[in-house]
């Protein structure tokens, strides 16, 4: 006998199934999975790229290699090989001298390519209108910060001595893109041309100089370069990416990415549930076909191949259609948001399409294959004895496969193994507990309902008849609601965090170098111009040199990313302050804050409160003795508390806070930040005149930039939430659909036994309301567990129970499942019972 290739036969049968409407649910579920994950991937990738581009402006580049010693030529050569744009710069401290004064300044020597991202802004004179420029100072010229003009008593057009060279001030420097990460630098900034560097003679072997190589270019090229250079970095060399450029933006980006990743996972779980339920239904409806095919001479293996091939075809169709739909959805979204997005968004890459396709096939493999494998186990004898159900496939295989696939997908989306594992094991544990909870709930309800009305008994009877099946359904629906809920909660949390981080009146100016004698007058002056100010903090520059008598390591292993902050903090002067009270945004982690009226005995050791992350990275704990060098003198202080600091806001923050009196005798200036409405800006000129020594830093443009980015991220988050909710609803209907066959049959049977429509309708409502209520309850428990774990381990947020959702979720779930279920089973009331029974038999 000459059999046709199974591939063709499978295709032919599949087409007939499709025409008969048998595939709608499975194909639909899969289509949702692929569409959603493609659209989310595309959307987030494009947005992320756009946000990254914006964030790169804070670094002046996409990637920066920096070092305390000259960088090997190979670094630049390799960058050229990778078609990256590059710019060299050196930064060092040097004394600027005018005819009348001298001032230590922070000098940056740059080449013509600087900056690779973002822009420089300059003005003709101090506090004049600023303009953006594409140039850098020409050879023989320098640009200086306005305060330097004051300090040296010079104007634009005058010359300054820099080492052996004399350079002319040709503009006032008002904005450097890569300045943002360093508000606290105490010395005024100067920009000069790299070509003049040799003439100055300031850089000699042993000078403290930072060499930087700025790079920008295509993502892949950057990635290639990053991979190439990372293993080569010496201990004193550092690679910074966009995420390091600015703390506020970096944090927002990281969280947004985490959120989008999690949302994608939620969407995938949703799709997984749908695929699992609908392929379960597909398999169930094909037991008879499988038995019949075996009777007609197909071997077990051939039957299995036949159905696997069908599955493959379904996968291919759903993937192709899903990719197209995903592209369409993403395009539509971009059109919709055209006004709010940057004018030119980077084109999406191929990766999201691959992710979409992988999602489809993985969902099939992980969720649809196990039920289909049962089809191979159908005994041909089933044609005579319909009660012969195939042996269920090992549950280890089912759940193992699904878990494996899920973890791979999650890993791909989050790029974070810890989150992935936490979610998986937490999820599995939660599912187990919740399943048990559902089962117990059902048992408890069963006892109560024996006395209830017929409608209640009929409705709940459907659920109680097979508690395991009912628990599985509840778990599925619960999982769907949970996914939606987690995404909703995270979104709300994220948005409010960002809102709090940058309220409308976030400080838009920093002021340094206010003299202690002027404290009263300065506060008064700020009040007079209507500025809202943070407290004035005294600041003394000092360097941490020893911990418990041991010199501080200045070279920290490069593998240890966590220690990075430590390295940066100890390689430069810190702003040391003292305060009687814990700053408002700080939280005490360990130890005790000193009593308000503490007058230390002159002989007692100074006490210092250290910032928690720095303490971690330096390995400093409570009671350790820190040695500082301040103004050439040494000071030992005992760590009396460890505090966490809210770095994301724009108020002055400190690594080290001493007890009042401990820094007495060291010279100090005052520092604060304040908010001044843009229209009041002119008042600054008067302030500057009144306090010539002070240094004013405007962070308004930076704030605006960060707000812009946050607005985009918010938008992305909102739309992704909408996606997930839509997907959740669709999957809910698909899942419900998959469970309706049996219900229709039962309903029809009851009608033949004389049950009236009203009774059936009531029973139907009872059943689905109960199902919804319990899945809603499970969802809210699971969502609380999930968000707690996520907040605690992944997002570093404080968690509090979401009481409103405890009320809303079960009722919303009951209503949704109730309406959808009653609508789905309306055929019971409308069609001839005989037809339904014949179909179900």
């Amino acid at each position, binding site marked *: *006998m*000459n*059999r*046709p290739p199974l591939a063709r*036969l499978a295709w*032919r*049968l599949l087409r*007939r*199934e499709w025409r*008969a*409407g*048998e595939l709608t649910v499975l194909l639909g579920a899969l289509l949702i999975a692929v569409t959603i994950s493609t659209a989310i991937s595309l959307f987030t990738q494009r947005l992320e790229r756009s946000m990254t581009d914006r964030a790169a402006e804070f670094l002046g580049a996409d990637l920066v290699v920096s070092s305390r010693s000259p960088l090997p030529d190979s670094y630049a050569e390799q960058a050229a090989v990778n078609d990256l744009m590059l710019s060299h710069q050196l930064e060092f401290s040097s004394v600027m001298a005018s005819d009348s004064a001298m001032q230590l300044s922070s000098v940056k020597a740059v080449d013509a390519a600087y900056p690779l991202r973002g822009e420089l802004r300059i003005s003709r004179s101090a506090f004049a209108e600023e303009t953006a420029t594409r140039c850098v100072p020409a050879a023989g010229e320098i640009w200086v910060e306005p305060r330097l003009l004051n300090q040296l008593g010079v104007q634009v057009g005058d010359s300054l001595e820099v080492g052996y060279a004399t350079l002319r001030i040709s503009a006032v420097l008002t904005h450097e893109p890569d300045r943002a990460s360093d508000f606290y630098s105490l010395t005024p900034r100067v920009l000069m041309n790299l070509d003049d560097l040799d003439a100055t003679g300031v850089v000699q072997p042993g000078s403290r100089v930072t060499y930087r190589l700025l790079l920008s270019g295509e993502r892949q090229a950057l990635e290639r370069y990053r991979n190439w250079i990372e293993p080569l970095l010496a201990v004193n060399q550092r690679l910074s990416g966009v995420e390091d450029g600015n703390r506020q933006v970096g944090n927002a980006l990281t969280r947004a990415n985490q959120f989008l990743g999690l949302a994608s996972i939620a969407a995938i779980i949703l799709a997984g549930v749908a695929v699992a339920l609908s392929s379960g239904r597909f398999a169930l*409806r094909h037991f*008879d*076909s499988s038995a*019949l*095919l*075996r*009777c*007609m*001479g*197909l*071997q*077990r*293996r051939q039957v299995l191949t036949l159905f696997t091939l069908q599955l493959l075809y379904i996968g291919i169709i759903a993937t192709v259609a899903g990719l197209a739909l995903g592209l369409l959805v993403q395009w539509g979204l971009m059109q919709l948001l055209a006004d709010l997005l940057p004018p030119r968004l980077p084109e999406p890459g191929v990766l999201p399409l691959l992710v979409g396709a992988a999602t489809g096939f993985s969902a099939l493999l992980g969720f649809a294959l196990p039920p289909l494998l049962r089809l191979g186990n159908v*005994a*041909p*004898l089933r*044609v*005579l*004895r*319909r009660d012969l159900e195939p042996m269920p496939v090992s549950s280890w295989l089912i759940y193992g496969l699904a878990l494996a696939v899920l973890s791979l997908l999650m890993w791909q989306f989050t790029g974070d193994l810890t989150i992935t594992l936490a979610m998986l094991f937490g999820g599995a544990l939660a599912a187990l507990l919740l399943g048990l909870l559902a089962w117990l709930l059902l048992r408890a309800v069963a006892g109560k309902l024996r006395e209830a009305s017929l409608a209640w008994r009929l409705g709940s009877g459907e659920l109680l008849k097979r508690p395991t099946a009912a628990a599985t359904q509840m778990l599925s629906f619960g999982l769907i609601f949970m996914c939606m809920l987690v995404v909703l909660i995270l979104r709300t949390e994220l948005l409010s965090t960002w809102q709090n981080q940058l309220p409308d009146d976030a400080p838009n100016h920093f002021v340094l170098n206010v003299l202690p004698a002027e404290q009263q007058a300065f506060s008064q002056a700020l009040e007079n111009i209507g500025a809202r100010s943070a407290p004035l903090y005294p600041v003394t520059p000092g360097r941490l040199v020893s911990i418990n008598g041991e010199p501080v390591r200045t070279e920290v292993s490069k593998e240890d990313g966590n220690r990075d902050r430590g390295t940066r903090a100890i390689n430069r002067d810190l702003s040391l302050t003292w305060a009687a009270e814990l700053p408002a945004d700080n939280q005490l982690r360990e130890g005790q804050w000193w009593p308000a009226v503490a007058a230390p005995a002159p002989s007692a050791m100074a006490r210092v409160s250290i910032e928690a992350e720095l303490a971690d990275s330096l390995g400093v704990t409570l009671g350790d003795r820190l040695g500082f060098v301040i103004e050439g003198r040494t000071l030992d202080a005992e760590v009396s508390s460890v505090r966490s600091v809210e770095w994301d806001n724009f108020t002055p923050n400190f690594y080290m806070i001493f007890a009042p009196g401990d820094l007495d005798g060291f010279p100090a200036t005052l520092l604060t930040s304040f908010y001044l409405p843009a229209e009041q800006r002119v008042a600054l000129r008067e302030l500057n005149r009144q306090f010539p020594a002070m240094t004013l830093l405007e962070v308004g443009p930076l704030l605006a930039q960060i707000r812009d980015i946050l607005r985009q991220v918010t938008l992305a988050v909102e739309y992704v939430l909408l996606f997930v909710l839509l997907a959740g609803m669709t999957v809910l209907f698909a899942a419900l659909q998959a469970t309706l066959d049996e219900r229709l049959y039962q309903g029809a049977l009851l009608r033949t036994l004389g049950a009236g429509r009203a009774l059936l309708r009531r029973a139907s409502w009872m059943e689905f309301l109960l199902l919804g209520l319990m899945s809603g309850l499970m969802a809210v428990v699971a969502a609380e567990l999930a968000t707690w774990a996520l907040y605690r381990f992944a997002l570093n947020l404080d968690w509090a129970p979401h009481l409103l959702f405890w009320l809303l979720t079960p009722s919303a779930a009951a209503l949704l499942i109730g309406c959808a279920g009653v609508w789905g089973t309306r055929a019971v009331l409308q069609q001839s019972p005989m*037809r339904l029974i*014949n*179909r179900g*038999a």
Partner: protein
Amino acid sequence: MSDAVVIARHLSKVVTSSEAPLQILDDVSLSIERSSSLAIVGASGSGKSTLLSLLAGLDLPSSGQVILAGEDLTALNEDQRATLRGREVGFVFQSFQLLDSLTALENVMLPLELAGRSDARERASELLQRVGLEARRQHYPQQLSGGEQQRVAIARAFASEPSILFADEPTGNLDAATGERISDLLFALNRERGTTLVLVTHDAQLADRCQHAVRMQAGRLLGDDA
């Protein structure tokens, strides 16, 4: 004996229930000649359907031997039995067993397509015409009456030109008049195509139309009624 298409020797079937082992078939032997018709009759639970499943190779006996079309079923594995079924055997079931997702025509085409016949559509059309359903070719099983569904099933059973046809209560789900027409059709086709017909029934009238009949009682064969 040489022309027997099905030979059963000392068939027993024991299933282990939760209490004691249950003897469903007890030492059954019979032989069915080519192109003959045999009715297996008996009350519900007498073991007649089990005997049918063993003769057709859908299940294996606990002991004994079945030779179908010259091959010892007990020596074949399930896949080899499947191949043999595809080649030699056709089935008609009490519950019709049509695939819901296929039209009447496609249901009949299925065994032909499985056999790789390129003329599946034409042959299936002819067979539907033969059973009087040419007008309902594109209808799905749900849109057909019980009698019509069984006619489709019969057309399907004869489609692959089996040498032996097993029918399990073919009229069991039908009213008397329809059942009568279905059995007419079954026997007519059986004669036309020289097929061997083995049918299980508790309908005495249907059994009477067969050349031979055996009666089952409590798992044992009581003898040839013919």
